[in-house]
């Protein structure tokens, strides 16, 4: 499911990142790769604060919906 559907507190494993562009490469550099665990720390109007590896990353809704997790 897209990351946007995950509730705060949920931890999932990234299955796929949609699209093929610079933004995706940027996400990968930040640690968003297939197989990485990601948890939702907080949600504000669709925007998310995520825990990925050892850091906190904020994403807007459109970007978060491109990340599919299990």
């Amino acid at each position: 499911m897209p990351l946007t559907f995950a509730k705060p507190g949920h931890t999932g494993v990234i299955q796929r990142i949609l699209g093929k562009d610079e933004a995706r490469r940027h996400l990968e550099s930040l640690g968003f790769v297939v197989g990485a665990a990601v948890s939702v720390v907080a949600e504000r109007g669709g925007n998310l604060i995520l825990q990925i590896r050892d850091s906190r990353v904020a994403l807007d809704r459109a970007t978060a919906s491109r990340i599919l997790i299990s």
Partner: protein
Amino acid sequence: MGMKIALAGNPNCGKTTLFNALTGASQHVGNWPGVTVEKKEGKLRGHGDVIIQDLPGVYSLSPYTLEEVVTRDYLVTEQPDAILNIIDASNLERNLYLTTQLMELGLPVVIALNMMDVVRRQGGSIQSSALSQALGVPVVEISALKGENCVEAALEAVRAAKSRQAAKPVTFGEDIEHALEQIGTQVSGHCQPSHNRWYAVKLFERDARTELPLGQMAKDTIEAYIKTVEDAQDDDAESIITNARYECAAKLAHAAGREGKVHKLTGSDKIDQIVTNRWLGFPIFVGVMFLVYYLSISTVGTMMTDWVNDVLFGEIIPPAVEGWLASAATPEWLNGLVLDGIVAGVGSVLGFLPQMMVLFLCLAFLEDCGYMARIAFLMDRIFRRFGLSGKSFIPMLIGTGCGVPGIMASRTIENQRDRRMTVITTTFIPCSAKLPVIALIAGALFGGAWWVGPSAYFVGVAAIICSGIILKKTRLFVGDPAPFVMELPAYHWPSLKGVLRHMWERAVAFIKKAGTVIFLAVTLIWFLQTFNFRLEMVEQNESILASIGNVLAPIFAPLGWGDWRAAVAAISGLIAKENVVGTLGVLFGFAEVAEDGVEIWGTMQQVFTPVAAYSFLVFNLLCAPCFAAIGAVRRELGGKWTLIAVGYQCLLAYMVSLCIYQFGALLTGAASFGVGTVVAIIILVVFLYLLFRPQPKPESKLRRAAVKA
């Protein structure tokens, strides 16, 4: 021969802190990713032949934003003698992801393991010796903040540079390595031997920025090798490399004894739950900014400013200087220059130093604690509605200190349209140089009312939001905002030393400016207001300045301040915004009335009504910034866009001030309904139309007309 050591690492891992510790420089540091947007050089303390190069932080060597391009270009084409890779130990894997790329550059690499104290506090540990063994490069544990082991790390890098022993790249899976080897043989001869691995990997990734003069046959051969691996792994080449790197990073982290830990709610998370709360987040932000301005303009700062203005520049300095000048029997024009020009002008600006110090202190604290990135996150939702991303808010926050670094901070914005719009609107936020103007108006015409300072800030924010909406509907800016992806740094309590140093540096810069640019400007203003065109000393109203001012003044009459002195003051703000106060100081002769503390700004009240004064304030907040900031806009956007930016800013400032004055005067009964009111109503209607009209379709006539209006 000199030696160059480059500092490279993830954003916000402490590169600039280390740079300052190594070189004794005082480059700006802050707790959010993207503080450094330019490369900076400095000499290693005690080793004049070693040059330390500070670079903007990057997450990888495939650049995403402008400042990341700076880093990649430097490392790949300029080739330092060694790389000192700073690693944030509390985020080991992701930092090692970059390390795997740095090690492919064919340069000696030394690792400085920073923030080990954070790891220990979280109950973790990392064995640096094991990490060193796994990577095959020296690893030095440092604390950049406390200055521990920094020089040792630098000297280790010097040793590595002298040995010319390039780091050995990490190896990936067998099939990838096989392909890379084959690509390497195709590449060899087309690049330096030390760059072979780098180009092989980049070509494998089909990196668009990498070009080598290879023949079609070589290209086809390479493509075939890539395809083989892609088919075998059922993934695209770029992702294959990315995944392989992360696997390496995880293995290295494991080798260093860093285990995956259970994430519990940290202190930062608890703070975040409050400051990014759905309901509380925005009010907290408004409260924080309100407090910053209230503290600096209306409380501690004011008490000290009053003392400086009333006592120091009122009772102490002018009589002393006067007595001294009298005893030296100086000619009258010199007395005038010193007392009415320099003491009144520079003094009136310097008088605001205490208030600015309080503002600098508040800003240094905000920048250092980690709250900035959260505001960007909060503002993203609001900014997105009018087509900007939350990232645009960071330049605006930096712009609260000074517009020039604020404009430069726009480099972290990846989307060109967003960047332009951010640069154009950033200077609407009152910078610290506008603080004296705000404080002067608040003190002289509003009796130091508590709301004037904060209101100036929120007028700036409102101008940005409205401009965003209006501009986004024009042909120049139409389009979706860039995605918002931003790392949120952990909060930390700023060090007192760091915050005070930050404040002190800005204060010194301000005093220098008062002693140079403003000194010259007020001297010129004094000269022009003392002499007429035949160079005879005359009354102010017959001076050169009055003649010029009287030509300009009618332009500003609809805004409520058609007095030539106000017009001249506003124009002189182009040199530096503090100059508005300096000019008013000379023209209204603060020095003469200063002896009577209560009446200090009295003469101004005869010219400005409160509504006109507020209109004057808003005009100065929103109109074209100072020359230094205009220069920064030009460097970032080029000449044509600078004209658009300055034109838009002046137009908006004029319109808003006109409306404030016309409606304000009508409401307070200072003026009756007239032509001005009608014009103001028309402006308001057009403004509301531009604000609320639907997003226009491309090439409609209506839109072009609206843009013109």
